[in-house]
């Protein structure tokens, strides 16, 4: 459903992505791993249109995304969960959720889509705090909120950037469980994760990035087998 072909992206004058290509199939959960500063987040931002790739193509269900504004991409069914929990701090939890709903369509709830009610049902913790300001939530709650806010738009694909960053172990588990739930509901997931052990449990396929390029691609077994890849690009 998503084809990224040889994209080159820049931040100002610095060349961050040197020809990244990757593919996602419907319903997959794919994880993008690699060290800090290798271009993982930039890859997601390029797909979302926040960073404009200067070269290459990104096709989503045969629709070219390069050149579209983020809101247009979002309306095509791509959701984006940024890395630093960018909830709207002065909005309440409930309002944050409402923001996720696109174009005022109160929900394609009929076909099992995400609705506020369903979110509250699945994540009672959010319902408890539904009238709190976003800034009053804990890190884990903020992260959850960021993810479900994106789900409210019923995307077909979500891009998740380091969902477990800076969270306590217990909460990491909650967040990962939640992503598993999301994925079960039929949403395709492209995730950036540093927490290798966590990632390997839940994702189907992996891409490893280094210096702005994809250096490895494979499934769980292949990744576990590729000792040298892990040594070079991931571990101590």
């Amino acid at each position: 459903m998503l084809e990224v072909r040889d994209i080159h992206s820049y931040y100002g004058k610095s060349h961050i992505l040197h020809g990244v290509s990757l593919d996602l199939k419907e319903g997959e959960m794919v994880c993008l791993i690699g060290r800090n500063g290798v271009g993982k987040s930039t890859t997601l931002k390029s797909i979302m249109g926040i960073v404009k790739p200067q070269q290459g193509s990104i096709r989503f269900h045969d629709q070219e995304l390069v050149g579209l504004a983020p809101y247009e991409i979002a309306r095509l069914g791509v959701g984006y969960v940024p890395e630093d929990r960018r909830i709207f701090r002065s909005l309440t939890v409930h309002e944050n959720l409402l923001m996720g709903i696109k174009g005022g369509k109160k929900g394609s709830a009929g076909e099992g889509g995400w609705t506020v009610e369903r979110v509250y049902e699945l994540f009672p913790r959010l319902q408890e705090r539904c009238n709190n300001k976003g800034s009053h939530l804990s890190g884990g709650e903020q992260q959850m909120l960021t993810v479900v806010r994106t789900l409210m738009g019923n995307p077909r694909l979500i891009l998740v950037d380091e969902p477990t960053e800076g969270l306590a172990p217990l909460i990491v588990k909650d967040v990962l469980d939640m992503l598993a739930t999301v994925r079960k509901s039929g949403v395709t997931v492209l995730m950036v994760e540093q927490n290798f052990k966590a990632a390997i449990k839940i994702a189907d396929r992996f891409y490893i990035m280094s210096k702005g390029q994809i250096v490895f691609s494979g499934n769980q077994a292949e990744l576990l087998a590729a000792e040298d890849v892990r040594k070079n690009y991931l571990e101590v």
Partner: protein
Amino acid sequence: MRNYLHIHNIHKDFSGLQVLTGVEFKVQEKERHAVIGPNGAGKTTLFNIISGKFKPSSGAILFKGKDISGKPPHILNRYGLSRSFQITNAFQELSVFNNILAGVRSRYGLRYNFFKKPNQNREICEKVDAIIKEVGLTDVKDQPASSLSYGQQRALEIGITLSTEPELILLDEPTAGMTREETNQAIKMIDQVTAGRTLIIIEHDMEVVFSLASMISVLHYGTILVSDTPEKIRNDQRVKDAYLGEG
């Protein structure tokens, strides 16, 4: 032996979100101390607190026995602390020379003078050239920072950090985003330029850490997991777990 730098029980929270929960470690004079830890462990926050950008919620930082926590950065700099930034934080429109000059003249007390021209002071200019040479940017010293390659920008970042002749240097991921070759050069360069000074470094690249550090502290979920020599760290199971995750 008196502690040169003592980070004592530092807490920090951002509107309720606990980032540091009692960080405690000691650095001796002339030591090269690396702080490692997974992303989001609070390394950069810790750096920001030591260098005066943030105030700690509680705790103390004792530098040569004096509490310096909560002092503004410009005062800390005058005490002899200097830090680099993870993302190159130079004066982009200025030449390399003028970038370095900014720090050197600050060291020489030529900050707010209404009459003296800093670039006409021979001693200062020589000092600037020396630093530029040290970080290997002599060839590009008249080019604006924005036109440098990524590796050169990182070198400039270190050059600016050195320009105030600090005795305690804080480096925040000096080799982030560099190629292997660039990284190796950078390690060599950092090794040279920090000779005889105290160094605290945050780094992900273990190669860098093990080739530079004489002590390593592992920061994990806001506290120091362990603080020891590189050999011991390399074989510590807790550290391996922290890095590979435990989910």
